[in-house]
C-alpha cells in the first residue's frame, strides 16, 4: 500500500452517505470498509486494522461520541486518526469531539477537496505514528540484544531487521552485530585454546639459557656465597 492509500473505515447510519463516501474514497485508491452504526463500527475496529476512521456523530444505539471515547480509552487504538462527520455545524459538537480526542471535523454535505485533504493528513499522522512504534520496537531489539550478549545467548540474526534500516539506528545495529560477533569469535578461539592448554617448553633452548646464566663466574661466586649469606 502506497503512502497515500490506506484502509479507511466509514461509520454512518445513512446508507446514501456511506455509499457516497465509500465510492469517493475507493476512487482515490483507498480500501474501504463500512459499518451502519456505532456498535458495528466498534466491532470492525476491534477485528481489523485501519489507518483512518470517518465517524458520524449522530447515530442511533451507539453514537460517534461513544465510539470515539472507546477508541481513545483503548491503548492499542488510541492513536488511530478519527475524522468526525456530521451535518451539525454547531460549535458545541465540534468542541466536544475535539475534547474527546477527534483529530479533525468534516461537515456534511462533504466537499471532496476538503475530504481528500483531511484523509491525507490523517494517513500521514498514522504513518508517522507507525514509524515511531516501529522505531521504538527496534530500539527495544537492540536493548534486548545487549542483555543477550551479557547473558551469553546473543543470536546474530535477532538484529537483522534493525540492521537493514538506513538510519543511525540501523548503523548502530550493524556495528553492534559486528562487534558482538567479533567478541564471540575471540571467546570461541580462547575456549579452544584452553581446551588445548598445554605448557610446551623447548628443553634444549631453556637449558641453553640457564647455562648462559649459571655458567658464569658471577653465578658460581654467588652460589658459593649463597649458603653463607643465608646462615648470617
Amino acid at each position, binding site marked *: 500500500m502506497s503512502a497515500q492509500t490506506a484502509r479507511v473505515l466509514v461509520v454512518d447510519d445513512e446508507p446514501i452517505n456511506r455509499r457516497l463516501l465509500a465510492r469517493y474514497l475507493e476512487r482515490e485508491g483507498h480500501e474501504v470498509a463500512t459499518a451502519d452504526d456505532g456498535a458495528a463500527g466498534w466491532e470492525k475496529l476491534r477485528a481489523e486494522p485501519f489507518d483512518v476512521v470517518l465517524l458520524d456523530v449522530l447515530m442511533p444505539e451507539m453514537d460517534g461520541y461513544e465510539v470515539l471515547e472507546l477508541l481513545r480509552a483503548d491503548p492499542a487504538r488510541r492513536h488511530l486518526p478519527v475524522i468526525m462527520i456530521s451535518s451539525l455545524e454547531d460549535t458545541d459538537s465540534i468542541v466536544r469531539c475535539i475534547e474527546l480526542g477527534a483529530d479533525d471535523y468534516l461537515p456534511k454535505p462533504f466537499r471532496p477537496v476538503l475530504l481528500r485533504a483531511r484523509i491525507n493528513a490523517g494517513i500521514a499522522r498514522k504513518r508517522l505514528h507507525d514509524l515511531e512504534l516501529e522505531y521504538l520496537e527496534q530500539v527495544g531489539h537492540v536493548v534486548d540484544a545487549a542483555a543477550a550478549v551479557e547473558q551469553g545467548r546473543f543470536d546474530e540474526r535477532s538484529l537483522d531487521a534493525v540492521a537493514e534500516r538506513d538510519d543511525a539506528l540501523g548503523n548502530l545495529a550493524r556495528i553492534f552485530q559486528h562487534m558482538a560477533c567479533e567478541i564471540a569469535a575471540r*571467546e570461541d578461539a*580462547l*575456549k579452544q585454546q*584452553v581446551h588445548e*592448554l*598445554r*605448557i*610446551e*617448553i*623447548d628443553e634444549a*633452548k*631453556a*637449558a641453553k*639459557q*640457564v647455562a648462559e*646464566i*649459571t655458567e658464569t663466574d*658471577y*653465578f658460581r661466586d*654467588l*652460589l658459593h*656465597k*649463597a*649458603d653463607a*649469606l*643465608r646462615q*648470617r
Partner: protein
Amino acid sequence: MSRVVAFHSFRGGTGKSNTTANVAVQAARRNLRVGIVDTDIQSPGIHVLLGIDQSQIERSLNDYLWGRCEIADAAHDVTAGLHAELPGRVFLVPSSIDATDIARVMHDGYDVSLLHEGINALVGDLSLDLLLLDTHPGLNEETLLSIAVSDAVAIVLRPDQQDYEGTHVTVSVARKLKVPEMMLVVNKTPLVFDHDQVRRRVADAYGCDVAAVLPHSDDLMAFSSRGVFVLHRPDHPLAAMYDDLAGRIIG
C-alpha cells in the same frame, strides 16, 4: 621471625609490581610491619602505586648503595599516604628515578653484597615482619642476588607460551641457587580459562607450588597505576584473592 620474599618475573608486563603492592597492603591489614625494596634500579615504578612522587624521594636505594646513607634512612613510611586504616605499616625503599642516577648505576654497577647487608639491616632497624623485593624482569646480577638472599621467591607469570618458557628458566636458576621456597603466581588469567585446570597444569609443568591464579580484571586495568587496588576496592573479589596470596607469602 621475619621473612624476605623476592617477587620476580622473567618478562615485563606480568603485573609483578602491582601484585607486590597489593600483597604488601593486605599483609599490613594483618597487623604486620611490611617493607618493600624496589630493587628494579633500571626501571623503578612501585613508588607510584604507593603514592610517592619524585619530590618526596629524598634518599633512595641508590644513596645507600653509594655509601651516602644507612638503608633505613632511605625507607619511607608510606602508610599514612595510602589513606587507609591499616593496623600494620608499609615502608618503601625506592630506587632513584633520576635519569642521571639510573645511568650511573647502569654504567658503574655497585657492590652487590651491599644489597644483602642492607636487606638484613632494614629488617632489623624497622623490625619488619615481612620484606618484599620488587625485582627487575629477567635475570641480571642484582636480580640473581635478590633471589639468592631471599627466603622465598614468588614468580609472577601470565598464562602464555612466552612466559611459560621464561618461567622455566627462572625456576631452574632458582633451584640451582637453592632458594628455600619457591611459588608461582599466575596473573592476568583470561576469564574463559578454567582456573583450577590452569593451576594443576602449571604446578605439574614446573613441579612447583602455585600460590595463586589471579584473573584478568578490567576493573584492575581501568584503575591502572593510580594506587593500590585493594585499598580502592576492598570488597572486590580480587581483594580476597590478594589476601589469600598474602597469607601464602607470609608463610
